[in-house]
């Protein structure tokens, strides 16, 4: 099993040189993405097989990496699940890119890195020792960095790549410190050794904080998220989909692997930290998303929101695990993992849609779009499904995982500790708020982009995207629907994973009547996506049929009602920013330090009235900018040392000598 998976990864790596060799030829795109599609599909099937057949964890040690240790690889249920996520996303992205990649103007900067990127993400999940894990982890960042700066002539892309690489390096070094603590001074880097080694409370706590920072910076936890909304939009869209939909999940995997598997029994207060960070991240992410004009940036920020949701569930799971409430822990963890899977589906779908829009209109600025539903009906349809799913609306899959999270929260009064008693409801409120705001955010995203009237000639002239891209998007949309109406199957598939991490599991779901899901007991709570979908479908159909039969089915077209002022201009429509204005008024002043200044021309003057809105990214201003400035200042100061005279340099040597001698003279 593991060996087949590794061969798959090897095959992916082997595609890269082919890409380099053929990148000149026009059909390189087809070759590379086709190959990637095939390999990732194979890996996907292998992972599925492992997940459902769940055999014992299979391991292999290759004579690579650290010489005396070798490179350990291992597939257990957790790894298998994340392999499913990674390769499903990879396959979809490859399929999408078969069409989308043809619009790429510099393929030689994308093709070689794409398969490597896929391979590294697989390797992170497969790795079973600290060194292999970190190498794959950082190499993953590196290859995605190369993809982010594929369009290197655009300055902001370079900046995005720069910030991204720095944050990635920061995260990796933090994880490195964490592993240093876990492995101790004598280098027990294999995960088995780490599992068996017993850390002191303090050490494991420090490890958890470090991991939360390291994995969190890759996943995009506030306030470590700054790189994400820069880097994800900068990359080509199929890569953005991978980064948002899959790579953040690999980061989540890193957190789960270490926090749930490696460092043993958690302390209850860890969950306080994780819960708080998760809740804040969820709300901040979606609020940022509501303020963006750039479609792909909206999606990137909403990724941050979903990561927050996932981490909140993970925090709950930690809390339950700390108090040995295994079933509850299983519920929370299932919610988290299911959301990982769901988000990877619809976020990829949405990025594909955004990519199609971009290649059709040449812009991602929503203020330039509009009315695309008439010109790209199919894209609009699948994008709408994605929006519905990510807004956690039944009967689609986003709702299921959110519902499970709420069910887990409802179990938490049994937690003994007071901190949690106060924290959990607050986090619950934050999650509910973020869910509602997400709905608003995607009404805005879809409505402004696809509905209304086109706001620019490019949007006017847009064409429906190609079949490959559509195929990828339809596949993901279908997956969203299935995961939404038949969640029981997926929850059961997660059971072995959850069991291995929490020693608890949910009751078998697929056995219940009408395939409804029952986390604890039917008297307590249950949800049946299938029936909800069926009811809505049937009632809707029946109503339509009845009305068209018995009443009228006539249609007349007329101009839209404009209060008697029929306006030709499309600028009088609600724009992205005006749509967000009420919410900005409610939350903005606190979160963004938003200032609105309107200037009205004097009566009689024909000068336009103008409203200027200033939003500040407080986190950037107060966390990142100071650090950057500090580095700049220190560099400036030290730089004087470059321009001294030989005499001054000699005095440095002299000083050093005297100091050392004095140290010696005063040595005890």
């Amino acid at each position, binding site marked *: 099993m593991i060996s087949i998976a590794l061969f798959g990864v090897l095959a992916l790596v082997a595609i890269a040189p082919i890409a380099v060799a053929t990148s000149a030829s026009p059909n390189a795109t087809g070759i590379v993405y086709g190959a990637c599609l095939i390999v990732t599909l194979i890996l996907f099937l292998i992972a599925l097989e492992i997940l459902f057949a769940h055999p014992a964890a299979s391991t292999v040690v290759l004579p690579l990496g650290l010489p005396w240790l070798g490179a350990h690889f291992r597939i257990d249920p957790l790894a298998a699940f994340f392999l499913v996520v990674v390769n499903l996303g990879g396959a979809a992205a490859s399929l999408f890119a078969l069409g989308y990649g043809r619009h790429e103007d510099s393929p030689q900067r994308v093709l070689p890195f794409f398969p490597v990127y896929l391979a590294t993400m697989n390797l992170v999940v497969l790795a079973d020792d600290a060194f292999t894990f970190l190498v794959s982890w950082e190499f993953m960042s590196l290859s995605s960095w190369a993809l982010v700066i594929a369009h290197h002539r655009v300055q902001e892309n370079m900046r995005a790549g720069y910030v991204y690489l720095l944050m990635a390096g920061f995260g990796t070094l933090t994880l490195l410190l964490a592993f240093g603590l876990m492995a101790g001074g004598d280098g027990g880097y294999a995960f088995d050794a780490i599992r068996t080694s017993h850390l002191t409370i303090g050490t494991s706590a420090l490890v958890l904080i470090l991991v939360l920072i390291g994995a969190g910076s890759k996943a995009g936890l506030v306030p470590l998220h700054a790189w994400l909304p820069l880097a994800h939009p900068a990359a080509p869209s199929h890569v953005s989909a991978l980064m948002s939909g899959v790579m953040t999940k690999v980061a989540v995997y890193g957190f789960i692997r270490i926090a749930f598997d490696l460092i043993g029994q958690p302390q209850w207060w860890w969950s306080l930290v994780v819960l708080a960070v998760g809740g804040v991240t969820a709300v901040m992410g979606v609020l940022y998303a509501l303020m963006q004009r750039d479609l792909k940036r909206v999606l990137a920020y909403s990724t941050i929101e979903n990561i927050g949701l996932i981490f909140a569930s993970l925090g709950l799971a930690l809390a339950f695990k700390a108090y040995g409430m295994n079933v509850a822990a299983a519920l929370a963890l299932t919610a988290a993992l299911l959301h990982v899977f769901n988000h990877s589906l619809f976020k990829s779908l949405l990025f594909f849609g955004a990519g199609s829009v971009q290649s059709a209109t040449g812009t991602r600025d929503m203020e330039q779009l509009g009315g695309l539903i008439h010109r790209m009906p199919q894209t609009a349809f699948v994008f709408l499904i994605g929006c519905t799913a990510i807004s956690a609306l039944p009967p689609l899959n986003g709702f299921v995982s959110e519902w499970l999270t709420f069910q887990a929260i409802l179990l938490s009064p049994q937690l003994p500790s007071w901190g949690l008693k106060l924290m959990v409801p607050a986090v619950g409120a934050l999650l509910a708020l973020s869910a509602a705001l997400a709905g608003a955010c995607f009404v805005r995203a879809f409505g402004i982009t696809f509905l209304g009237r086109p706001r620019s000639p490019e949007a006017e002239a847009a064409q429906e995207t190609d079949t490959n891209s559509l195929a990828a998007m339809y596949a993901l949309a279908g997956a969203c629907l299935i995961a939404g109406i038949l969640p029981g199957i997926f929850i059961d598939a997660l059971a072995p994973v959850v069991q291995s991490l929490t020693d608890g599991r949910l009751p078998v779901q697929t056995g219940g009547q009408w395939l409804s899901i029952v986390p604890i007991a039917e008297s307590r709570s249950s949800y049946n996506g299938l029936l909800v979908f069926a009811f809505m479908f049937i009632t809707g159909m029946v109503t339509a049929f009845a009305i068209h039969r018995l009443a009228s089915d006539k249609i007349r077209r007329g101009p839209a009602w404009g209060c008697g002022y029929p306006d030709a201009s499309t600028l009088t429509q609600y724009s992205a920013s005006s749509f967000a204005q009420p919410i900005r008024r409610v939350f903005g002043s606190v979160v963004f330090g938003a200032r609105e200044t309107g200037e009205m021309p004097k009566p009689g003057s024909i000068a336009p009235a103008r409203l200027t809105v200033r939003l500040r990214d407080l986190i950037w201003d107060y966390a990142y900018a100071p650090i950057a400035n500090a580095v700049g200042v220190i560099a400036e100061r030290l730089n004087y040392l*470059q*321009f*001294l*005279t*030989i*005499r001054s340099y*000699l*005095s440095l*040597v*002299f000083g050093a*000598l*005297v100091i050392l*001698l*004095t140290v*010696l*003279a005063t040595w005890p």
Partner: protein
Amino acid sequence: MHSITFDIAHMLAGSLVLVSFLQLYQDRLSALLNMFALHAFVLAASVAWQAYAQDAPHLYITAVIALIFKAIVIPLALRRIVIKLGIHREIENVFGVGLAMLLGIGLVALSMVVMLRVTSGADPLAREDLAFALAVVLLGLLMMVTRRNAVSQVVGFMSLENGLVLAATGAKGMPLVVEISIAFSVLIAFIVIGIFLFRIRERFDTVDMQAMDRFREEQR
């Protein structure tokens, strides 16, 4: 029972330190050069005495080198340069002589503390010599960093190196001493030639130096 030999060696080494102080005290180049000649001469004497005390004849070579090369040739050459560059009566201390002297005293104290707590095992002659040698080395360095002028810096370097030779000869039966002293003479010759060829004087000058480096960083 070599108390006499010990005292004389002690006296010579100590006077070497004294001369170093005298060098620090000078603020005119010409006077400084004289002082250096004296320094080299004292060194030669001390080396010779060591050669006699340890009856190590090869040390005489070192003594002779010191005498001829350092006490006579180099000072003369430098004097010519100084005259050529017309800086023989220039005052070029970075800060006042008094402060320099104070620092010097501090350095001597430091070297004493370091060395005397050190050589508990070694024999007294070597111990004293080492302490003085270290003092001379440090004073030489101090001179290099407190003088602006290339020539006086070379003088500083040479007195530093005198300290080394003192230490080397003080170390009983140390091989390669002669070779090392020769090597250093070559080195110094290089430096002097360098000064002579490239008119290094202005290259040392603070302001100009900065301008130079700025120039290197900005332009090109």
